[in-house]
């Protein structure tokens, strides 16, 4: 999964994938082997290259995370690259038809809405299975699903268009 994380004003490009029993997290080109475990409530144990780090993590449910570690507290904003692009381009192109593409290769598992449905910003549109994980692809804007370009069972490549939203 590709993510853009706003971290104390810095835009970090993150690639995260499951590997045996843990994660490989690449941050701005530097790769880390990370094992994460829930340690009660909000506490998480992160073993990064085998070194223990205890953090607490809270989410606002909207992609914002409050992380408290030994160096204090920070609030990070996690976006998928599309949201990030959409957000960045939002000022330029106010409204219109937006195509949402797959950000990784996978297989469409389920459609959650039908063409012509009205969706809210953040509402799930379809479920994509990739690397044996299922990911809900959400619409970043409120609007009408003008076109669904895939069907359940279909394989897609990264960058393939999935659906279009008209937020006019």
């Amino acid at each position: 999964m590709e993510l853009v994380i706003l971290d104390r004003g810095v835009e970090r490009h993150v690639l995260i994938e499951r590997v045996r029993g843990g994660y490989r997290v690449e941050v701005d080109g530097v790769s880390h082997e990370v094992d994460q475990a829930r340690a009660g409530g909000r506490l998480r144990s992160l073993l990064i290259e085998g070194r223990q780090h205890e953090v607490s993590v809270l989410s606002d449910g909207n992609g914002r995370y409050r992380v408290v570690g030994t160096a204090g507290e920070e609030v990070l904003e996690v976006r998928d690259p599309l949201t990030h692009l959409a957000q960045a381009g939002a000022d330029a192109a106010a409204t219109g038809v937006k195509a949402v593409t797959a950000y990784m290769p996978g297989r469409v598992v389920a459609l959650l809405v039908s063409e012509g449905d009205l969706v809210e910003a953040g509402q799930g549109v379809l479920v994509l299975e990739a690397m044996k994980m299922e990911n809900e692809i959400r619409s970043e804007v409120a609007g009408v699903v003008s076109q669904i370009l895939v069907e359940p069972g279909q394989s897609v490549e990264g960058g393939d268009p999935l659906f279009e939203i008209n937020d006019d």
Partner: protein
Amino acid sequence: MDRVLVVNRGEIAVRVVRALRELNIRSAVVYSTVDRAELPVLLADEAYWIGEASASSSYLKAQEIVDLAKEIGADAIHPGYGFLSENAAFAGSCQEAGITFIGPTPEAIASMGSKIESRRLVRAAGVPVVPGGDDSLPDLTAAEREAEKIGYPVMLKATAGGGGKGMRLVRSADQLASAFRAARSEAEASFGDDAVYLEKFVEGPRHIEIQILGDLAGNVFSLGERECSLQRRHQKVVEEAPSPIMTSELRRRMGEAAVDAARSVGYTGAGTVEFLLDRHGDFYFLEVNTRLQVEHPVTELVTGVDLVEAQLRIAQGEDLDPNWESMLPSGHAIEVRVYAEDPYRGFAPSPGTIDLLRLPEGPGVRNDFGVREGSQVTINYDPMLGKLIVWGRNRDQALRRLGRALHELRIEGVQTTASLYRELLRDPDFCAGRLDIEMLERKIQSGELDPTPGDQGLPLGAIAAAIEHFERVTQRAVSFPAGREGSSVSGSRLRWREQARREALRGGSWSL
């Protein structure tokens, strides 16, 4: 004694309730509206509402508290520290109502409560005092005359003072007028009494105090010293016993001076005689605190004496154990006070809800805390959450244990001073025991105790957030059986999903 009313809140109320249960004495506490479900109430046998949040309408309501004690059949009142603990009139009202006030007599409290009176008394008993300060100063002219006589630098202090209120350092004559005005108005605001006096300012001193106990038979013993030089705004934040620079000879002399000072007023119960120790090894009497001190646990850990139990036994007429008279400290104890304050923003109060509290455990660690997870830290009371105290066979082991314990301590929801203590443990002067009462503020100001960045270069926050996000996104999707079509998703799953989505979209509130 069958029942004791504890007139306090927070960690010290918890401390006294614990001692009462160990002695099989029923514990009753008073609580204000906001303290209804706090630790003292939860741990006590009985609890009685005394008023609204502000101290003046609850923990300071002297007459109502005495009436309550009579009504519930309490034999004694333990005042803890702060609030009514050094209020001679309150101790007197208890006495009149036939209730034992756990502390010295009202007369002893009154004479030690006045700084000028106490200086006069202890000086007559042969205890060295800081030059100056024989009378409160009626006006600026008197202050100028006195300052010239003593010689600059001088310290202005409130006659009714304590806790650093109404204190001003004056380095030269041209600073005196404004400092005099400021000290008076601060004294008036804090104590309702604007009387101030002057003392010679002792440069770079340590604050060293002697714990004393006096029984009703007139025995007064010293239980050794505590070093309390690390202060901010004249309030102690780190204390230890023994003092790193103490010699057995100096301990004997300071102990004798403290006992003499206490005897001069017929002192009974637990008390503390505070001294300044200058660079030449000369010490000067500061004041007597006629109550249990916040930092009493360090003495408990190096002497093995339970000071609250001792207070209760003395109040019941038991004599002191004669073996305590010649007791030497065993090992080393250090206490850090954990305040809900931001040490890097001038110790600004940090009110909030304690939403995570993990106290350290393991060898040599003691926690005296007055809060639990979910406790509200309000601006109504002192922001001290509690104290972390460690014991080691020597100072070096105690320091290492303190570092280990601070590593385990985790408090979220409010800022605390724990981060400052982690830095302090990296400070070569603190570690070597080179202390003076201005050191902490000096080092904070110079940036020597600024937070050390954690794992340099490691984007810990980004890694944690990425994994959390990944798991949230994928877990949400997991509720859909792989390979099935959207239309086959059952109605109940859809409703569940819808609910989860609504929760997520509501935003604003943090959740697990």
